[in-house]
């Protein structure tokens, strides 16, 4: 079987893994080596459904010995099997990188016999890539639960980011759908990665902050904003003093992914879970993957269930609000109302539930408060703080600052003045937003499909 044929099989097998980012580590080029890593990452292409392609995402092998119910590569599935050699995959990465197709390699694999045997093959591939072909670009490696600690360590020294898939949002769902995996087995490598990174940080000198990081709060508005700001610098989460560029073990940290919509957990539970993952394991990202009904199995939703795309989108928005805007899970999906509103975004939904906190005064509000206004983000809030030092701002000034006023208008006052055409009426705001969404981007087919769907999960 030549590489072209294998690539078709093994990319097809990896497509269900949604995580595809090349961000989190900036690494300068080194003499004689190919490539570098930029902390913001770079999306080189987009799939027909709009997901970013930044890494060569394939499985090393899809000849899996596990039998997870939702997985297309499970032992009992009748699919064509293939396995790359380490050399082949490393050459492919370099060929694609030099043509500016990708930023690096996302290496994952089905379980070839045992987790340890699989990890050894992955290490062999990465050694050829890093040492033989002198590749200095980005590498993401997936850890299979049950891999021996010394192999996890070896992978962490070759890769930039590691990830262990949580797969499902609760222990009982995991037991039902993945009989070969268990929650403790998944938590072990996650804890190991966290501890190894913390240990290394203790021995590293504190890095001087980059301009973008210095721009993090408290922002007094005295100096102009840099032209380019990187997303991670805007997060309100506490960060370690040791930045990624000197680290040798998983410098871009770890992430995880879980499937939503295959099992009955609600949004509040999922957001609580992701917050505890961020805190407990110092994760960089939690990825949500809307369940695609490809398997006919009585433990899973029926094959004609539509993919919960809107829910996935709302969960990502909520995740952003937690990481960049310091929202807590209970503010977004309360234990009493545990589902996110599918019609309007979670920040607007929060604002409408807390209408008594508005209007916010543009001339006085703190950064945190400005960022709670629907339509104002981390950059817009900082632009306002910078501009209000120089003059009393009115709505036209906010427009000049490129603030999206469509929604924000209802929630703001400028030097005591409100916009009379945009009252603070929750029903009106909701109706306007929903109508706008229908008129602009959501076509009628979609609305019809959703109107006829009872929400099961």
């Amino acid at each position, binding site marked *: 079987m030549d590489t072209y044929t294998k690539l078709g099989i093994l990319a097809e097998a990896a497509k269900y893994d949604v995580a595809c980012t090349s961000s989190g580590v900036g690494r300068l080029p080194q003499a004689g080596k190919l490539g570098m890593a930029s902390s913001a990452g770079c999306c080189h292409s987009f*799939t*027909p459904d709009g997901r970013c392609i930044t890494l060569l995402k394939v499985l090393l092998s899809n000849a899996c010995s596990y039998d997870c119910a939702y997985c297309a590569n499970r032992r009992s599935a009748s699919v064509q099997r293939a396995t790359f050699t380490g050399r082949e995959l490393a050459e492919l990465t370099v060929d694609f990188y030099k043509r500016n197709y990708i930023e690096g390699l996302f290496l994952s694999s089905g379980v070839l016999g045992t987790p340890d045997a699989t990890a050894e093959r992955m290490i062999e591939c990465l050694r050829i890539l890093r040492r033989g072909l002198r590749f200095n670009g980005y590498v993401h490696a997936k850890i299979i639960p049950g891999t021996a600690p010394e192999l996890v360590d070896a992978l962490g020294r070759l890769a930039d980011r590691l990830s262990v898939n949580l797969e499902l949002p609760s222990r009982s769902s995991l037991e039902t759908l993945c009989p070969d995996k268990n929650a403790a087995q998944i938590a072990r490598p996650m804890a190991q990665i966290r501890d190894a990174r913390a240990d290394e940080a203790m021995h590293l000198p504190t890095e001087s902050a980059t301009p973008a990081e210095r721009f993090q709060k408290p922002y007094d508005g005295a100096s102009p904003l840099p*032209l380019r700001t990187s997303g991670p610098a805007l997060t309100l989460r506490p960060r370690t003093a040791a930045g990624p560029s000197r680290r040798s073990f998983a410098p871009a940290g770890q992430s995880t992914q879980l499937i939503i919509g295959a099992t009955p957990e609600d949004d509040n539970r999922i957001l609580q879970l992701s917050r505890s993952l961020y805190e407990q394991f110092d994760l960089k990202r939690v990825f949500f993957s809307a369940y695609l009904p490809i398997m006919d199995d009585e433990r899973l939703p029926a094959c004609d269930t539509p993919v919960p795309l809107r829910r996935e989108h709302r969960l990502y928005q909520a995740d952003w609000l937690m990481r960049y805007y310091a929202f807590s899970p209970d503010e977004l999906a309360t234990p009493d109302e545990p589902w996110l509103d599918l019609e309007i975004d979670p920040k607007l939904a929060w604002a409408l539930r807390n209408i008594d906190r508005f209007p916010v005064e543009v001339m006085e509000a703190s950064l945190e408060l400005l960022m709670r206004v629907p339509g104002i983000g981390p950059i817009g809030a900082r632009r306002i703080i910078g501009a209000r030092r120089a003059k009393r701002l009115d709505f036209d000034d906010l427009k000049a600052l*490129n603030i999206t006023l469509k929604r924000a208008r209802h929630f703001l006052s400028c030097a005591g003045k409100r916009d009379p055409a945009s009252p603070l009426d929750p029903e009106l705001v909701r109706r306007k937003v929903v109508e706008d969404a229908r008129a602009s981007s959501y076509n009628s*087919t979609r609305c019809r499909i959703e109107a006829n769907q009872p929400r099961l999960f």
Partner: protein
Amino acid sequence: MDECMLALADRVWRGLGSSVAKGCPSARRGRCSGRCEGACVTKIAYACAADEPSMPEAVHRYVRLAFNVGSAIATMTTHPAVAELDGLARLVLGECERTRQFARFSLLADGSYLASFKPKANTVPFVAAHFARRMGTERFCLVDPVHCVAALHEAGDRRCHVIQLDQALAAALAARDDVSPDERYVRTMWKRLYDSLALDGRGPDERGYDLRASWMPKRFWDDLPELDPRAGNPGAYVPERYQSA
């Protein structure tokens, strides 16, 4: 551009740098720098790369204002002249990112790499350093046939040479098709990967809008091998490194 004009422009540029640095809390040794990456002046360079017909006048208005008000320009973000210049700079920065994302290199028969990219602003001078870092070990050329600019890099060099070309030469360079025999197979593999990553049930019809087209504008599609139907067949030649059993 003749040398007199260059010298004059350089003088205005330097004068402006020290003028806006006076009294600025983030200035160092009387010059823009540090905290804000000298945004007040560097953004002029980005704005100048815009194709918009309004660009020269907008830059002129901003430069006059900056000489008048000095470091206060940093906080005058709502002033029409500043907002207009910021708009142009943002537009060019966006186009620079698209150049980094969607420029596609091909391996030529002589072992060097060539990419031709048609941005809506003169982005090559800004992104040349990025590609020099990324492809330091390679000899390559990135050519923009619209603005007739090319970035040339020799293997091992730390930076590129950015040169202005005449229209005929730029077009000829962009049209070079003496690619290496490996090229067809590698392009086909990339298209195969791209095609395999598509997921059913998540497309524009189910989502309600075309997310791909908004991330990856259609004006670039013709030059992307992953969307080129001709890249569907790998042909008979398989490079040796990919012949494994």
